[in-house]
């Protein structure tokens, strides 16, 4: 469509012809009656349903394409649909904001070309759920370690503390850079040690990107349902043993967002 044609469509569009809709895709599940909870509503309040293809089905809901951006509500709606599906069975999540033009397209472009892939993924994820583990430093404790362990940092710290802020800008940047390097080294060791302690309890893991001064480790963990309580106990013991230096935060169980890769 040319921009002139689009402008014309916009002008004549309001209220006259029905709004253009698409199919928002939440995830892929096993086909079968009753797989989707009856009360599940998606982005924009639309009823969620399935589009089936053989043994698999896409979970979709109709959505108006040209609509005011919902932002927060859209993210929350997406997340709640996946939660609802996870509570009732295995689901392969589809990326937030994925919309296809028609239910035919859902079959032809999504399900049919990757039917075997989805079936295998559903088998692999059956009986498992994701947890997100985040480890962060107690900042003051670990910074104290850094100063104690690095003579050059301690010296630079004394020097920049003694002068007004604006007169030691370059030295303060240098200090921060050295501290950042020292923290990176610490982080590498601590993250490895934490992972080593956690991995025996999980069926898979995927590192997530994290940042910030206190960041140690962000990892998605895939946990077998029948090992869930053992896993949680192990994490509790780990949290207690590291608590003077490191905080552990565990979120889940949730849909296996980090274990579905690219199709």
């Amino acid at each position, binding site marked *: 469509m040319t921009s002139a044609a689009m402008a014309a469509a916009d002008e004549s569009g309001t209220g006259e012809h029905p709004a253009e809709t*698409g199919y928002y895709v939440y995830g892929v599940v096993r086909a079968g009656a009753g797989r989707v909870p009856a009360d599940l509503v998606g982005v924009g309040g639309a009823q969620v349903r399935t589009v089936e293809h053989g043994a698999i089905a896409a979970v979709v809901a109709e*959505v108006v*394409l040209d*609509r*005011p*951006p919902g932002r927060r509500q859209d*993210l*929350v709606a*997406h*997340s709640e649909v996946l939660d609802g599906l*996870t*509570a009732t069975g295995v689901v*392969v999540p*589809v*990326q*937030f904001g994925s*919309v*296809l033009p028609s239910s035919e397209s859902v079959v032809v*472009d*999504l399900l049919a070309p990757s039917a075997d892939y989805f079936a295998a993924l559903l088998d*692999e994820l059956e009986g498992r759920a994701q947890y997100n583990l985040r480890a962060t430093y107690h900042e003051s*404790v670990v910074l*104290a*370690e850094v100063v*104690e*362990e690095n003579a050059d940092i301690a010296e630079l*710290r004394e020097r920049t503390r003694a002068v007004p802020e604006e007169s030691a800008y370059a030295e*303060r*940047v240098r*200090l*921060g850079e050295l*501290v*950042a390097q020292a*923290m990176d080294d610490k982080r590498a*060791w601590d993250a490895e*040690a934490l992972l080593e302690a956690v*991995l025996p*309890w999980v069926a*898979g893991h995927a590192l997530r990107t994290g940042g910030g*001064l206190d960041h140690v480790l962000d990892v998605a963990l*895939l946990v077998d349902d029948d*090992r869930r309580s053992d896993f*949680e*106990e192990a994490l*509790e013991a*780990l*949290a*207690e*043993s590291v608590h*003077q230096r490191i*905080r*552990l935060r565990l*979120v*889940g*169980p*949730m849909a296996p*967002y*980090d*274990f579905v890769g690219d*199709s």
Partner: protein
Amino acid sequence: MTVQSQRRGGGYLERPAPSGLADVIEIILDKGIVIDAYVRVSLVGIELLTIDARIVIASVDTYLRFAEATNRLDLYEKGGKDLGEFMGDLQEGGAAKKTSGAVKGVKRAITGGGSDEDDDESRRPAKKAPARRRRTEDA
């Protein structure tokens, strides 16, 4: 996220229910099956939203913040007894061997024990032997 397990044990492990927008963004953004761009249609607002969420802070600002946090630190007052002992443990390697000192510190912190031995078994806080290890990766 769907079902919150009960808090157990000593309560050192934080088990928050994701509630805020930041939590939800962090969990779902860029995650999941990606549908090819040439078959998808765009939904107003979604692209803007994903870009908003990827704002990165400039590195000099990060360094200054590190410096500021380090300078704010009062090693002598904040230290107290526990931290002082901890620092003593960590210092044993000396500046020349700071990495091995840090590793020992980590291992000790993780095992929760005060002993110095390098027994591999002591590294695992877990009570049971690992029955299955990274099954999906082995498969």
